[in-house]
């Protein structure tokens, strides 16, 4: 436990303790006006990291839990090693205690705890709270996302792929990669069979099929959560096979602007509606030019 300057006690909460989970569920629902059950919260937070569990950190006032933030444990991959990274998620404070630096106090305590436990970094995709992260919390702006809609239309489809030359190789060296093995399981915990995995010829994609309306017409869209490209010269055929297998008209790829897989496609556009990355170094030093092969499936709200 730690006492924040404003009299709040910051406390690590045990997700196996029914009293704690009741309290956490109450705070989440009070703050967001929702009606979620604990099972849902646990499903989106229990990442089954090989290194460290998710951290549940709360703020108490007079013994009552009034604020909560989850720090979801991710085993990012960097040159074959795990980078222990925690995603700041589900930050909530009950109305009566908002604007009292509860969230700030929780995050500062999380930094201390996780650094002491050997974690490498924190990351998040803040929208409303972005000024807090980049300001007093000291996170670094990690850059925004870009988007590409690959349409299953003759003439348009092929234009989305950059021809891979015979003298090119795609090796993700010195790149922070999301852990698709971990993410598929994590997302399936929440979304079940909605999350599909498609693999062929050494390439793997996972995501979910969504129904949209475009110009008044119903369209099936495959939202790519993650894409593992081991055979770049087979990518176009692979995506074509994906389209056929899942009867979709569009494959939407949303990736971090530094992702090396962007080089395989053409026609990327900025995705300002996708919250940008923010990073805080704990035991690892990241730098401005670092590359993140992150896709939309890494975001906790995917």
């Amino acid at each position, binding site marked *: 436990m730690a006492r924040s300057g404003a009299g709040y006690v910051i406390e690590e909460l045990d997700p196996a303790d029914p009293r704690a989970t009741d309290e956490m569920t109450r705070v989440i629902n009070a703050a967001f006006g929702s009606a979620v059950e604990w099972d849902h919260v646990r499903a989106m937070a229990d990442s089954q990291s*090989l290194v460290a569990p998710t951290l549940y950190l709360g703020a108490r006032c007079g013994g009552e839990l009034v604020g909560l933030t989850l720090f979801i444990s991710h085993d990012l*991959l960097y040159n*074959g*090693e*795990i980078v222990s990274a925690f995603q700041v998620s589900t930050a909530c404070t009950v109305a009566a205690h908002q604007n009292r630096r509860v969230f700030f106090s929780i995050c500062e305590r999380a930094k201390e705890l996780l650094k002491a436990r050997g974690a490498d970094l924190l990351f998040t995709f803040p929208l409303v709270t972005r000024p807090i992260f980049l300001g007093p919390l000291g996170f670094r702006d990690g850059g925004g996302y870009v988007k590409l809609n690959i349409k299953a239309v003759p003439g348009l489809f092929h234009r989305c792929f950059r021809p891979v030359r015979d*003298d090119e*190789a*795609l*090796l*993700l060296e010195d790149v922070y*990669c999301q852990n*698709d*093995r971990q993410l*598929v399981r994590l997302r399936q915990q929440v979304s079940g069979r909605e999350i599909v*995995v498609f*693999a062929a010829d*050494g390439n*793997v994609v*996972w995501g979910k099929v969504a129904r949209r309306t475009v110009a008044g017409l119903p369209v099936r869209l495959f939202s790519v959560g*993650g894409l*593992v*490209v*081991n*055979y*770049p*010269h*087979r990518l176009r055929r692979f995506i074509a096979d994906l389209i056929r297998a899942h009867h979709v008209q569009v494959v939407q790829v949303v990736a971090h602007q530094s992702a090396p897989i962007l080089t395989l496609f053409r026609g990327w556009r900025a995705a300002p509606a996708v919250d940008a990355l923010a990073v805080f170094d704990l035991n690892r030093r990241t730098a401005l030019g670092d590359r993140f092969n992150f896709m939309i499936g890494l975001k906790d709200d995917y």
Partner: protein
Amino acid sequence: MIVKNALKRAYYALVRAELPPGARLTLGYIVHTEAVWDADTFTRLLGFCRAYRALTGVGAICALMTGVNPLVRQGMARHGVDGAEYRDRVGRLAEEARLGYHGHFWFRREDVGRPEAAIMWNNYLRTAVEEQFAADLEWFAASGVSHHGIYVGGWWFVNRDVHRLLITRGFIADYSCSKSPWFQNQYYHRLMLDHTIRCGEPFRVAAGDRSLLCIQNLIGCHQTPFPQDFVRNLTALMDPAYREMVGVVNAHDFDLDSDHTLACLEYLAGTGRVTFADADGLVREGGARALREVPA
């Protein structure tokens, strides 16, 4: 397929597929042996190995997934094959072919069947490979089965760490590299580009004062009724300046097309420009021609 074959028949009636002038090939055969827990696959594989020896005068290589590999364990469980029976089949296979090691790795053993957890060069966790590699080698030792220092990567996966593991454990030859886009891995692809390694050119990768001989997997073999396809596909990969090639062709045990493969090999033998080599012959010839040594 019928139309395609008819077109090919017509094409090859007009265009003779030949190895380019001066091209000579020292050729071996490697089977990625993954499914001998299936009795039918095992029987077919034994039959192929005998027929291969009868045709070529030399033995094939069967690079084996071990009895502790999680995919093999799954197959064994499904087919009611226990560890002793698996070892017995491996022992019988060793009488017909030279055994080697074929590694398939996942992030965790329980991940088998999950493609997002299959370890390849762009989806990689070093500790998982090291653990499973160690377990596999322990199985070879405990089972009294020799891998003869021969390795070929499952899903063609090899990287610098795997090379160092192989070199440290005294492996002699790796057959995971290829200039064919169908068998390429990005690590070897870049390594061969960086060092201008040509199709069929053996080379060595070194770590410290030891090295590993790398012999290319040329192309797959062979699942069409047209041996000319083999010649055409190989010719397309060849470098005009490098004509005396050493390499292997491959299949999995479970998709081995024995009839077409043997017909193709017989066709190649008839050209007078192909010498078939067993594992020792490949190492001898490959070692003699491996003029380049690159760091792992």
